[in-house]
């Protein structure tokens, strides 16, 4: 009896202790809602697509790299679960003309070796990005911010020391741009503009990213890295907000095979997948509805016409082909995860972007097909002289399905003979770049949540303008928009740019992406509304 009593007392004390622990926890862990029962083991496993090419933010360009680096390094600003820009290392910032920006850095930010994070670190890092010696694949990103001399330094005509950035004092950073960029602060959330630890790079060179050498300023640091198997992160005890980090370990698994990743999720080994296999979507949505997460995504899927090549230099041909694509069939029946038909290059989810639906977007598919037929026969194509061309896409089940569907739509409604050609990724990139195609599949994801991240692609001088669209009218609108400091005016100009695109149809927009993945319901704090898919592991926790 005595022993039983003791046990009961122990149990009561224990539960009180636990409650105390969890309440005291939730009082300072702002992100964990009060009353949430946290699991004992706070270890998270995330599927991460391809193996990362590097953990050096200045040498990477891919999404998998960004997912890991976001946890390892903290830039001037972060994003909240809704995609809003919130303070990171910078607690506040000001500008009067959108050309000169002053950032005030927090004094408690530290590197994982205890060194303070200062304005000098950002100066060093930004110069490293544009330094041609670094050969950063995303150096152009700083050029896009219009930072003083960024372009010249990248091109090798100016010294990197002349970059428009300086440390006023250890905690005040000043950036100068050549022209006003009202969304500059938003752009500072990108992987390319994360700071790196100068002393470590000088000491270890290319080897600084190895777990034994790594020094970062993010909420986590690298504990273990086995190429093609896993990257393990543990909390950075020096992180200024470490008290709010709930997870004790985050593991990223590089799994490119979507089915393999799904299997490992279903067997309970992964908490958050990188994506999910389209062909299993319906079954997953039925059997694992609680795990399927499908927020909108800042990406567009489209077909680019070779505007420099006959017959695609004829707007009537381009329009006819675009009109004849039944976008609803593709989004509803082929994809069916909530993707939206696209009539614009810019996805409608982009902040502040309110385009006007072009005329063809308002027609029924039957009417569109009728117009398409008229346009095509006006352009000189008919039964005796049918339009024939090749559609290029990069090898993927999804692209193949869509290409086959569109091929049959074109055949059925316009009598057009289309040959499908798939090429493996790198070959496809080369072919596209060399302009050696008729019509090509393409996609684009925004680097920042602003329409210019998409619309600049179609400017005649843009290096990614593979459709070779060249319109003075469009360029003029875009140049005006990029100079405008008024959000409303700028977005109106972006809408105007889309009108020009609908008129010239250099590309045929097809659908707006969603980001479908599996998330175990025991994961708390997952951002379901962040269009740029910026997930910070520091905001996540595991419920009981």
């Amino acid at each position, binding site marked *: 009896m005595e022993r039983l009593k003791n046990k009961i007392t122990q149990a009561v004390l224990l539960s009180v202790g636990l409650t105390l622990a969890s309440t005291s926890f939730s009082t300072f862990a702002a992100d964990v809602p009060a009353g949430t029962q946290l699991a004992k083991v706070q270890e998270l496993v995330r599927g991460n697509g391809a193996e990362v090419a590097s953990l050096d933010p200045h040498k990477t360009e891919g999404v998998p790299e960004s997912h890991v680096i976001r946890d390892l390094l903290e830039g001037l600003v972060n994003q909240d679960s809704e995609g809003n820009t919130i303070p990171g290392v910078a607690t506040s910032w000001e500008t009067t003309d959108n050309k000169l920006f002053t950032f005030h850095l927090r004094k408690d930010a530290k590197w994982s070796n205890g060194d303070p994070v200062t304005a000098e670190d950002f100066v060093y890092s930004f110069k490293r990005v544009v330094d041609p010696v670094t*050969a950063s*694949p995303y*150096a152009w990103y700083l050029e896009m911010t219009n930072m003083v001399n960024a372009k010249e330094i*990248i091109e090798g005509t100016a010294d990197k020391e002349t970059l428009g950035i300086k440390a006023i004092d250890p905690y005040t950073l000043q950036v100068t741009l050549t022209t006003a960029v009202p969304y500059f602060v938003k752009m500072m959330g990108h992987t390319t503009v994360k700071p790196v630890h100068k002393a470590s790079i000088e000491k270890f060179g290319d080897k600084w990213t190895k777990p034994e050498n790594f020094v970062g300023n993010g909420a986590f640091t690298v504990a273990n890295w086995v*190429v093609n198997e896993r990257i393990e992160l543990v909390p950075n005890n020096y992180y200024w907000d470490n008290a709010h980090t709930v997870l004790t370990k985050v593991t990223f698994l590089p799994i490119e095979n979507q089915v393999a990743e799904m299997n490992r999720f279903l067997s309970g*080994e992964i908490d958050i997948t990188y994506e999910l296999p389209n062909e299993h979507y319906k079954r997953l949505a039925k059997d694992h509805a609680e795990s399927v997460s499908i927020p909108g995504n800042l990406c567009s899927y489209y077909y680019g016409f070779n505007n420099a090549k006959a017959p695609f230099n004829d707007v009537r041909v381009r329009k006819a082909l675009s009109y004849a694509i039944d976008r609803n069939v593709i989004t509803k029946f082929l994809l069916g995860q909530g993707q939206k038909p696209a009539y614009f290059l810019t996805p409608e989810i982009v902040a502040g972007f309110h385009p006007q639906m072009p005329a063809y977007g308002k027609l029924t598919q039957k009417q569109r097909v009728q117009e398409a037929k008229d346009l095509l026969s006006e352009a000189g194509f008919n039964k005796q002289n049918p339009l024939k061309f090749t559609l290029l896409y990069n090898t993927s089940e999804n692209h193949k399905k869509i290409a086959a569907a569109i091929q049959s739509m074109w055949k059925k409604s316009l009598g057009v003979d289309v040959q499908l050609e798939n090429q493996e*990724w790198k070959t496809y990139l080369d072919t596209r770049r060399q302009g050696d195609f008729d019509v090509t599949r393409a996609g684009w994801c925004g680097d920042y949540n602003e329409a210019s991240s998409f619309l600049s692609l179609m400017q005649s001088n843009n290096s990614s303008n593979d459709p070779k669209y060249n319109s003075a009218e469009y360029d003029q609108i875009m140049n005006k928009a990029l100079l405008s400091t008024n959000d409303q005016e700028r977005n109106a100009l972006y809408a105007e740019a889309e009108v020009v695109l609908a008129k010239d149809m250099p590309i045929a927009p097809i659908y707006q992406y969603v980001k479908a993945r599996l998330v175990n319901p025991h994961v708390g704090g997952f951002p379901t509304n962040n269009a740029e898919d910026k997930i910070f592991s520091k905001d996540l926790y595991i419920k009981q």
Partner: protein
Amino acid sequence: MFKFIAKRILEAIPTLLVLITISFFLMRFAPGNPFSTERPLPPEVMENINAKYGLDKSVFEQYTTYLTNVLQGDFGPSFKYKDFTVNELVASALPVSAKVGAAAFVFTLIMGVGVGTIAALKQNTWIDYTIMSTAMIGVVMPSFVLAPALIYVFSIYLGWFPAGGWLDGSFQYMFLPVIGMSLLYVATFARITRGSMIETLNSNFIRTARAKGLSYTYIVLKHALKPAMLPVVSYMGPAFVGIITGSVVIETIFGLPGIGKLFVNAAFNRDYSLVMGVTILIGFLFIIFNTVVDILLAAIDPKIRY
């Protein structure tokens, strides 16, 4: 014997050289390059990258530089995995593939020869039929079908083994990949062993041994097994090759950080130096293994001389 081995090693040098040369030039002439990205790099950046990896020199000069470095054991930096050299990547991947491959190979031999012998001894009984029809399924089932089926049954449905990964390479992470990799060869070895064993058991010298009144078990183990193993040993070479190349599929499905996965990714990424490094490694292993098989054959078959 030593003369034979020395000769084989000397023969290997020109073979490897041809292999290096062909792969080197094929790789360079493949469309796409390691640094083609969706957003093209500015020419200035591209120049720096080319200079860093020696791509600014003529292809022939690149080739001679590469050969010189390889002779010194330096396989260069990986083009894709910028934080690692090829030597580092191979050093971390090889033990994984070697462990899984060796386990699969040993398992294949023991199981294949074992059940093949049993089937031969119990020829035309239900045991024989069961073993041989199961083996038939094993032969026709490709690993990219078998492996997901194994995962579905043992990982998702029963939950006995993890659906992939390596972690520490312990038994539970090895089990399914080893089965997935070896089943085809177990089946093939079983069929070869059975056929060869039946033929041997029907031959004159076995009849003589039986006439002498020796026990059946003694005859099988002492007299029949050795000659019956000849086709089995000959098939070890192709089986080893198959297991290595098959590791590409198995390692991708199970997410093992081995050579096969490294190889596939390297080819897709046009990681020139990594493709070359792994090609040379696999070529080297093939030559070594074929030599071992030749020595084994000579040891078993008195008709073969070095």
